[in-house]
C-alpha cells in the first residue's frame, strides 16, 4: 500500500459513457490481487475533494519509450461517467498527473477458484472480475455472465474471451445477447453446473438477487461491494456494511475498504443490506 504520484498513460472511451484509463503504476503487477481497488485522485485538485475508489481491471507491463529502459508497469481502471469526479476524469490525457493510493482492500478468496466457477458482472461491476478470471487455474472451467441494461453497458467481452473463459451476454432491453436479467442466466447456468462457486459484482439489487439464488442452492458465493468511502484505509468508517448477526445490541459493522470490498456472502447480514446504488466509483457496479 502506497500513495503514488504518477501519470495517465491513456484514457479512451470504450463504449458510450465508459472509459478505460491506463495509469503508470510501479509495483502493482506484483502487489495487486484480484478484487482490490485504488483510491484515485486528480492530482492537486481540491475539486473533487475526496478520492474515488476504482476496482483494478488489470495490472501489466508495457514497453518503455526506449530500449534501454525497463518495461513500464501499469494498471487499468474502467469507469462510467456519472458525476463531477468522473466528468473531470474523462477529460484527462496522457501525461496528466494523478495520484493512486493502493492497492487496497481484501480481494477474492482464490482458494475457491478450482472446479467450476461462475463470474457474474452487472455493468461496470464486471471490472474487478477480470483479474479474477485471469487467476483461475483452468479457464475452461470458468464462465462469465455479463449483464447490462443495454448494449452500451456491455464492456470488455473480448478481453474475457481471450482468457479462454466462456462468456454469456444478456441485456435487459435485448439489444445484445439474451434478453433479460443476468440473474436469469445465472439460474440456468447453475442447473448445468450445480457445484460451481459464484463470484459477483454489480448493482445492489443484482447482488441481492444473486445471493438469494446461491443461498437457495447452497452455492458458495463471494461478492464485491461498493459503498461511498472517504479514506479507503479503514479510518473514516464511512463505508461500513453490516456483518452476519448484526443487531442494535450486538452491532457488527465491517469496513468495505479493508475487510472488503470482497466478502464471503455468509459473512454479511442480508436482511438489512443498504447501499448507495448510484455511485460513480467503479469498485463495483
Amino acid at each position, binding site marked *: 500500500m502506497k*500513495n503514488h504520484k504518477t501519470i495517465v498513460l491513456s484514457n479512451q472511451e470504450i463504449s458510450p459513457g465508459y472509459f478505460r484509463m491506463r495509469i503508470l503504476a510501479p509495483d502493482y503487477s506484483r502487489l495487486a490481487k484480484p478484487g482490490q481497488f485504488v483510491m484515485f485522485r486528480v492530482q492537486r485538485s*481540491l475539486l473533487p*475533494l*475526496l478520492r474515488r475508489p476504482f476496482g483494478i481491471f488489470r495490472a501489466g507491463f508495457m514497453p518503455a519509450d526506449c530500449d534501454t529502459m525497463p518495461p513500464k508497469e501499469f494498471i487499468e481502471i474502467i469507469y462510467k461517467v456519472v458525476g463531477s469526479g468522473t466528468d473531470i476524469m474523462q477529460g484527462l490525457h496522457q501525461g496528466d498527473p494523478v495520484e493512486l*493510493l493502493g492497492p487496497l482492500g481484501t480481494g477474492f478468496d482464490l482458494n475457491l477458484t478450482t472446479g467450476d466457477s461462475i463470474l457474474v458482472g452487472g455493468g461496470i461491476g464486471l471490472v474487478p472480475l477480470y483479474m479474477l478470471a485471469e487467476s483461475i487455474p483452468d479457464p475452461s472451467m470458468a464462465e462469465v455472465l455479463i449483464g447490462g441494461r443495454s448494449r452500451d453497458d456491455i464492456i470488455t467481452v473480448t478481453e474475457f474471451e481471450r482468457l479462454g473463459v466462456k462468456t454469456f451476454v444478456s441485456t435487459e432491453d435485448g439489444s445484445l445477447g439474451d434478453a433479460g436479467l443476468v440473474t436469469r442466466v445465472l439460474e440456468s447456468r447453475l442447473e448445468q453446473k450445480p457445484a460451481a462457486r459464484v463470484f459477483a459484482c454489480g448493482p445492489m439489487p443484482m447482488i441481492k438477487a444473486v445471493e438469494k439464488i446461491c443461498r437457495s442452492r447452497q452455492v458458495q458465493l463471494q461478492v464485491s461491494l461498493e459503498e*461511498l468511502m472517504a479514506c479507503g484505509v479503514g479510518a*473514516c*468508517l*464511512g463505508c461500513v456494511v453490516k456483518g452476519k448477526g448484526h443487531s442494535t445490541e450486538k*452491532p457488527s459493522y465491517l469496513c468495505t475498504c479493508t475487510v472488503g470490498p470482497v466478502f464471503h456472502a455468509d459473512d454479511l447480514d442480508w436482511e438489512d443490506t443498504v447501499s448507495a446504488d448510484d455511485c460513480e466509483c467503479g469498485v463495483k457496479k
Partner: protein
Amino acid sequence: MNRRKKEDKPLNLQVEVAGITFKNPIMPASGTFGYGEEYAPYLDLNALGAIVTKGLSLRPRAGNDTPRVCETIGGMLNAIGLQNVGIEQFIYQKLPFLEQFDTPVIVNFFGNTQDEYGEVAARLDELPGVAGLEMNISCPNVKHGGIVFGTDPGAAFAAVEAVRKNTTKPLIVKLTPNVTDIQVTARAVAEAGADAISLINTLTGMAVDVKTRRPRLANTIGGLSGPAVRPIAVRLVHQVVQAVNIPVIGIGGISRAMDALEFLIVGATAVQVGTANFVDPNAMATIIDELETFCRDEGIEDINDVIGTLSV
C-alpha cells in the same frame, strides 16, 4: 540576509499546549485518523506533533446506518455516529501500538451523560501512555432531551467540571461551532477547568439527492468539514482567542501550511488536520515540511513568534 544564512539557523517548531510539548503544531483531528495504525503505512507517526484518536466512549458504539459520508463543494458531510471500539478495547488493543512512538497520544472521548463523561475520564487518567484528553462536547445529553452539551453553556460547564474532578491530565475541550455565541461556551468550559480549547468540530449540514428526493446521508443531517469551512473556523478561533486565557487549538479545513498559519496568526497555538488526511494520507507530513519552508523563507526562527500576531 541570503538564503543560506537563514537555513543555518536552527528552526524551532516546538509548541506547548496545556503542559504537553508538541514537536510541531500539527496533529490529526479526531475521527479522521482512526487509532493511528490505519495511517502508519503512509506516514511516520513520529513526525507529528501529537496523535489524536477517534472519539471513544465507555462502551463500544455501533454508529449510524449508511450512507454515512457524501461529498459537497469543497467539503464533505459525515454522520458516522461516533462508531468506536469503546474505552476498554482501546486500552488493550489500540493504545499499545501508539505507545511505541515518540509522539504524545491525546485521547478524544465523549459520553451520553455527565456521569459517563466523568467515568471515561477517570479510566483514562490511570493510563501513563495517554498524554492528554480531548473532550468532545458536541454530542447529545440523553438525560436532558438530547440537547447537545456544547450548545448549552450550563450543561457544558457541568460536564467539564465532572471530568475535571476525575483527571489531573491536561484537558482539552473541543467545541461545537453550532452555537449563537462561541465566546459564551468558551468562557464556560474555561471556568469549569479546561486547560485548553480546540475548535471547530463540524458544522451541521445537509444534502439532498434531487432525483430520489432523499437526504444523501442515512442520518439526514451530518457534519460538514473540509476546505469549505475554513473561513468560518478561522473566525471562530479568532473570537475564542479573544474570550479566554487558555491555549487554543485550531481546526477546520486545513490542507496546507498556509491554512495552518492562518489559525496560528489569529492565536491558535497548534492545529489539527482532518478531512485532508482522507484526501492525502501524507497530508500532515507535507504540511510540516511546508511550514518549515515558510519559516525559513520568511526568516522566522521560532514558530511561537507567529502565534497571535494578527495585525488589524
